[in-house]
């Protein structure tokens, strides 16, 4: 095929993915004077960010004046079991407040405090009420605000357009990408000086997931194919509270705000079981009686937080244990009760979309009855390995931000740190991609051979006489990941899981989509399956290699954190022979000051911060 016949568009900076991260990146790149384009699989404003409910974490200190970036940073590192890239956690904690305030300037209307400031709520793992929010639809507010602001910044949007693979120049730098219009099936080429991936995660590899169809690990796979490194892929967060009934909505998220607003977890015997699962590291900061937890909910600043607000990995494992021990709820989860903790009026005001969701989908009134919840695959801490300050991957010209980038959250992400991550690193990556693009100067020609082979790979799925049904392959992959690479892992099942993925990879070679190239979901499914398989393989292999339990990665055969493993991240890349290669990479020594902050006791740090605040008030 003569590639000059394919429509080609040029952008200094091209972004793939239009959730919170992609839009933030696009807005910043455009503000830097770059010709900016943004490619998305869905319509504008529909990305997975709309599903985020709870809020965005930022140490604004509007509700508890003791809050400070240092304490946010400490919470984040502890939540991530110290595997976070220190510098990223630092940047995040420092920049989040100003990004949230900027969002307000762009039109976001957050819930207010009595003083008329942005209100903040409690969330798991956060020392103070820290999440700026709008009821339980914060993600919608964020995406709509970025969208409504973004459309006036001269950014070109390419909706319902799927990115297939990257193209590189002779020097090995990224210089373009091949995409496909979902509506017509026509191909389109982008020449770009810098490309930012903001493609989200890959939760669709599991059966029970809170992720939508878009979450097929596209960014991981495209980056991997282009030679970039992935990192921390073994850390997949299972959100403790997904719906478990009815079956057709299994996995859909029940926001952590339910617990933030006081909701409690009970087993079938009516026991508030979280008291039995408090890890040593958090004992001194967690309430150990129901009486103390009740005081905390009533606003007593000296009371410690209820155990339901421990980090997500802890709560998810606890529910899993209870179910295994035969104390699960009717449909195999735990009971989450807010009805006994708050008035019906409060619940409807604070958690309107949860109320609505259960009312319609489960015919259950959460102001009267407990919900049934269980773990659901939710978030990838791992992803494309990037440089902390620039967000650039190991391939020149390719940047990544948001869920598809690794490092910020370490072994486990705190709720609320995702939305603020999107704002902070979306912005930073937009800025550094713009700088990089500026230094590049001109566009370079796309290599016809690479382009043709990408297109051939895509069309062969349609052109084949017969072959495997992509939906069934996807289903088999989901089952495999759910049973063999789930929340609790061990070498036997991981081995099995990897063997099954190898088999599926073979079957994938003959995948066939029926019909034409026009808006053909079967074809789209088959295309994303390649990405899911790469994602799944990287998760399973990394999970097998990391012989310890840390954060969201739990190995039954290697319980507990191993100090030795804190020294390494697992990086993954495509070997010269086409096989997936894993290597342990040593982590950089942390900055001394950051280490001091993260390791100091909460009392010491609070005293230090209070003193700092006092002196800055005096000046």
């Amino acid at each position, binding site marked *: 095929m003569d590639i000059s016949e394919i429509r080609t568009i040029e952008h200094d900076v091209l972004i793939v993915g239009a959730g919170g991260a992609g839009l933030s990146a696009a807005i910043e790149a455009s503000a830097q004077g770059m010709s900016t384009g943004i490619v998305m699989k*869905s*319509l*504008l*404003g*529909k990305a*997975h960010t*709309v*599903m985020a409910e709870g809020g965005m974490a930022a140490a*604004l200190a*509007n509700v508890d004046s003791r809050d400070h970036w240092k304490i946010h940073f400490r919470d984040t590192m502890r939540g991530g079991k110290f595997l976070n890239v220190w510098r990223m956690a630092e940047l995040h904690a420092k920049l989040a407040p100003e990004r949230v*305030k900027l969002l*307000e*300037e762009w*039109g976001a*209307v957050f*819930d*207010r405090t009595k003083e*008329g*400031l942005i209100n903040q709520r409690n969330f798991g793992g956060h020392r103070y009420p820290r999440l700026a929010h*709008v*009821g339980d*639809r914060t993600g*919608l*507010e964020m995406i*709509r605000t970025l969208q*409504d*602001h973004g*459309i*006036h910044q001269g950014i070109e949007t390419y*909706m319902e357009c799927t990115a297939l693979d990257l193209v590189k120049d002779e020097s090995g730098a990224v210089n373009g990408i091949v995409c496909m219009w979902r*509506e017509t099936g026509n191909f389109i080429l982008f020449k770009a000086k810098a490309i930012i991936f903001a493609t989200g995660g890959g939760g669709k590899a599991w059966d029970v997931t809170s992720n*939508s*169809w*878009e979450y097929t690990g596209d960014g991981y796979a495209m980056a991997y194919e282009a030679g970039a490194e992935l990192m921390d892929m073994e850390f997949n967060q299972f959100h403790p509270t997904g719906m478990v*009934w*009815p*079956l*057709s*909505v299994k996995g*859909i*998220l029940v926001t952590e705000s339910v617990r933030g607003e006081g909701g409690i977890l009970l087993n079938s015997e009516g026991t508030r079981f979280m008291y039995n699962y408090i890890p040593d590291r958090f004992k001194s900061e967690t309430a150990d009686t129901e009486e103390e937890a009740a005081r905390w909910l009533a606003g007593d600043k000296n009371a410690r937080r209820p155990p339901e607000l421990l980090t997500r990995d802890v709560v998810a494992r606890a529910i899993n244990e209870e179910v295994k021990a035969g104390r699960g709820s009717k449909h195999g989860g735990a009971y989450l009760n807010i009805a006994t903790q708050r008035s019906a009026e409060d619940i409807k005001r604070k958690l309107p*979309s949860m109320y*609505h*969701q259960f009312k*319609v*989908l*489960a015919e259950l009134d959460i102001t009267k009855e407990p919900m049934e919840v269980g773990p659901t695959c939710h978030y990838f801490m791992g992803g494309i390995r990037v440089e902390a300050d620039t967000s650039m991957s190991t391939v020149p010209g390719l940047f990544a931000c948001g869920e598809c980038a690794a490092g910020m959250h370490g072994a486990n992400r705190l709720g609320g740190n995702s939305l603020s991550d999107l704002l902070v690193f979306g912005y930073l990556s937009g800025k550094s991609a713009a700088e990089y693009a500026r230094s590049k100067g001109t566009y370079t020609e796309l290599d016809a051979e690479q382009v043709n082979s990408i297109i051939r790979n895509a069309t062969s799925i349609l052109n084949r006489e017969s072959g495997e*049904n*992509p*939906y*069934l392959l996807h289903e088999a992959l989901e089952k495999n990941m759910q049973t063999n690479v789930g929340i609790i892992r061990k070498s036997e099942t991981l081995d099995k899981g990897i063997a099954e993925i190898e088999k599926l990879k073979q079957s994938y070679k003959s995948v066939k*989509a*029926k*019909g*034409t190239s*026009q*808006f*053909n*979901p*079967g074809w789209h499914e088959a295309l994303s399956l390649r990405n899911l398989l790469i994602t799944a393989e990287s998760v399973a292999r990394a999970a097998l290699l990391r012989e310890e339990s840390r954060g969201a990665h739990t190995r039954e055969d290697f319980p507990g954190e191993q100090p030795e493993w804190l020294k390494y991240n697992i990086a993954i890349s495509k070997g010269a022979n086409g096989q997936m290669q894993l290597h342990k990479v040593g982590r950089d020594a942390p900055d001394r000051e950051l280490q001091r902050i993260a390791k100091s006791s909460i009392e010491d740090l609070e005293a230090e911060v209070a003193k700092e605040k006092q002196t800055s008030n005096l000046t």
Partner: protein
Amino acid sequence: MDKRTFRVYRGDNERGELKSYEVEINEGMVVLDVIHQIQAEQENDLAVRWNCKAGKCGSCSMEINGKPKLACMTRMNEYEPGQTIVVTPLKAFPVLKDLVSDVSWNYRQNERIKPVKLAPEAKTDRGYVMYQKDVDRIQEFRKCIECYLCQDVCHILRDHDKQDAFIGPRFMIRVASLEMHPLDIEDRLPELKEEFGSGYCNITRCCTDVCPEHINLTDNGIIPLKERVVDRFYDPVTILRRKIFGPRKKKLPPINK
């Protein structure tokens, strides 16, 4: 388990037909589940839009037995056992394929609306100061998930094809969310009257009836906006005052920095 007949539109804007499918229904299923089942088992290329499957993204808008609805929030037990279910794409917009319609017109309308502009004097180093009671009503409008069901049902767009004259209920409340923002200082009333066609709405309230977010579009958004237009452009006292004193600035709530 229970067997049902689904009749689903297959085709594009020029030609198409309702095709019948026999499906098996399990407890708790919604219409979107059934469409997905047909897609996976019988028609791999049946086109449908969806994302969240929880009524939060507004992608899965279609007409079910003639009513504009979100397929992911429409439970099968809303229908009588044995009742045939007819699923068609939105009527007010061109069909791209099967259940997917071309909603790009809506995106163009949004671009015509002047963005938010907050009073600089209201900014403090702790952010903007505004009170919950002053933002309650615009937070209602901001719940909008852009499903465009209201656009689909509004007779001005649906039956009279006035897409060139009326911006539609979704964007009326988008304007309302800006005009009623306690700190916004932009003025959008002239274009609301002249270009966005606020006068076309004759308050049938069909938009409010279909809104899956239960936004009271008509009473809380559209009517107050229409009143502002009347006050500004048709009230003789206001007109005289404007002639003498110039356009009136919006009143900001008190700000304590």
